[in-house]
């Protein structure tokens, strides 16, 4: 029994899950009907939990791409700017077309935005894999210049679009479930299948653990790096389109602002090390849910929304400190000490046994 508890505590998802349960519990105490899900007359699901799943979808998508990038010992800071670029591109195409409400127009706009993101993702991959620039710096370039590019596309304006098919992407429902949630779930499932049911995930991890050894073992790191950065960029673009569609406006300065930080946090809370190597998509899912639940909790408990960032800092610090090797070592020492105390013979017996 004690052993099972010890194993559970040692599991890398233990603390994040505890955090998630605590946050949900706080919500349930504050709002008794928090976990209830209702169906409205149009057949759409409604409730706080659905809100968490829908509003957390963009962060989750980006975090999935980020997980793979981080597994290769990289990082992608440009995802927030890519959100803005994709939103700006799609909105400017929809605004420029004579038929903004046609499904065809929106399809073209979405595809062009995704293609542009793919090109920019390949650019990141080129800088990292061919030129060998540190990922944090290579993507910093696009993070800085990207907002400028987005403003170039929107010509410094906030583009507001009136297009029902485009709006569907952010606030529509399929079989009662929000479209954004479905898209995020499909992405998570596809990436999980692709990397965990094939050797791809293993190869990505090997590049992250020891690039030189994996090169000598015949792993083509270059192609893998191109793939993960391109995937990260495309997923960021999808998230950007959903965010833009939600606001029905492309704002080059504010779409996806700080989302890279939320995504990286989700990955780190999920137990994937920033030093590369082993990654956990389940962990990333838990991490993204923790972050979104945290934001929701701030609202339900009645803390002023402006204090959200302080709470985020507190949660990040708590999770990081609990997952730290120093804490783990302290825990292990404490457990062995209490175990040895339990196993140690009583003073009197000790003398006899001698």
């Amino acid at each position: 029994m004690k052993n099972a508890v010890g194993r559970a505590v040692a599991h890398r998802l233990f603390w994040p899950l505890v955090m998630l349960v605590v946050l949900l519990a706080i919500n349930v105490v504050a709002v008794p009907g928090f976990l209830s899900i209702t169906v409205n007359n149009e057949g759409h699901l409604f409730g706080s939990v659905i809100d968490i799943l829908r509003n957390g979808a963009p962060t989750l998508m980006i975090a999935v791409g980020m997980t793979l990038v981080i597994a290769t010992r990289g990082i992608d800071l440009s995802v927030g700017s890519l959100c803005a670029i994709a939103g700006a591109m799609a909105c400017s195409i929809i605004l420029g077309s004579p038929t903004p409400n046609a499904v065809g127009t929106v399809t073209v706009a979405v595809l062009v935005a995704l293609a542009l993101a793919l090109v920019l993702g390949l650019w990141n991959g080129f800088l990292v894999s061919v030129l060998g620039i540190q990922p944090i710096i290579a993507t910093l370039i696009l993070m800085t210049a990207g907002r400028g590019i987005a403003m170039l596309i929107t010509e410094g304006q906030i583009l507001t679009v009136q297009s029902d098919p485009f709006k569907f992407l952010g606030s529509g429902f399929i079989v009662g479930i929000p479209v954004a949630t479905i898209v995020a779930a499909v992405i998570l499932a596809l990436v999980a299948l692709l990397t965990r049911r094939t050797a791809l995930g293993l190869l990505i991890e090997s590049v992250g653990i020891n690039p030189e050894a994996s090169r000598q073992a015949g792993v083509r790191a270059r192609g893998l790096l191109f793939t993960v950065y391109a995937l990260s960029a495309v997923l960021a673009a999808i998230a950007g389109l959903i965010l833009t569609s939600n606001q029905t406006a492309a704002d080059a300065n504010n779409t996806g602002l700080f989302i890279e930080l939320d995504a990286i946090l989700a990955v780190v809370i999920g137990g994937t090390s920033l030093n590369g190597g082993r990654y956990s998509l389940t962990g990333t899912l838990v991490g993204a849910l923790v972050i979104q639940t945290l934001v929701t909790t701030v609202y339900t408990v009645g803390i002023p929304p402006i204090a959200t960032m302080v709470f985020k800092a507190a949660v990040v610090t708590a999770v990081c400190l609990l997952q730290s090797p120093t804490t783990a070592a302290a825990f292990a020492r404490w457990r062995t000490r209490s175990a040895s105390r339990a196993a140690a013979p009583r003073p009197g017996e000790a003398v006899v046994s001698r």
Partner: protein
Amino acid sequence: MTTMSVPASRLGRAWARTVDVFTSPKSGPVLVTAVLFLLMFTAGGVRYRGFFSAATILNLLVSYSYLIVLAVGMSFVIISGGIDLSVGAVLALSTIIAAKLLQLGWNPILVMVLILVATSTLGLLVGLMIHVFEVQPFIATLAAMFLARGLCYIIAKESISITDPVFAWMAKTRIVLGYRMSVTPSVIIALAVLAIAVWVLQYTRFGRTTYAIGGGEQSGMLMGLPTSRTKVLVYVVSGFCSGLAGILYSFYTLSGYALTGVGTELDAIAAVVIGGTLLTGGYGFVLGSALGVLVLGLIQTIITFEGTLSSWWTKIFIGALLLVFIILQKVLTSRRT
């Protein structure tokens, strides 16, 4: 080589030495930045009336004295192989603490001391988190960024103006250096910080240990250098510099505002990189970082002078410049190793 005629060999040696200095990963990028600065300055002078003057440079110093101080702190952290994402938020926090406490009628000197102590303490906590708990600098300083930005909103959501006479004096006083040339006291403070940083990094045990940590923490430790203490202290330095930069910024704007300096951490990092500090740590000059700030400022000035270019070109130019410098560093370091 030794048999070559004297003038040719002397010329050859001088040329070889010049090439050597320019292609060294230590001094090369800084020199390229210096040349770039002069070229931009000359090009601007040819193109616009009234650009090629000492006043342009002095104005850059007046407008960007806070960024110089930030870049100094960031240089320490980056040379040690870390990164500090919290500087922009800590800057905003110190402007808002200053504005709020002055509004409540506190003594301005006490306020400044309090800010510097508070931001240094925050830096200390970040440093301990990084060193003792082995949290990555990226994440630890990110948490500090959220904390500082969140505290800003809690203290005051709206902009608070500063009417305190001492702060107003610091904002309005001009130290005249010559005809049409003057600077604010902030410039003097920034340059003093820069001079102290140069001295600390080049001539003290702490400075050399900072380079050693960036070059290879393990080796530094085996050599008996106080790596753990230094690794924590660089974040204290960065916290102190962010607090001081915030004070200078509140002199400049005479207000405190929670949204001040969003993205300033990127400007500081860009200035340090353009100034020739390697982001992997171990190489770099703090003077280069100050030069990097001036290059960023000059880009902004040229875009203002040009008039027809929209402001978003600044971001694209800075991005392009970052790219050029990173590739340059890459080429220079790969040739050496």
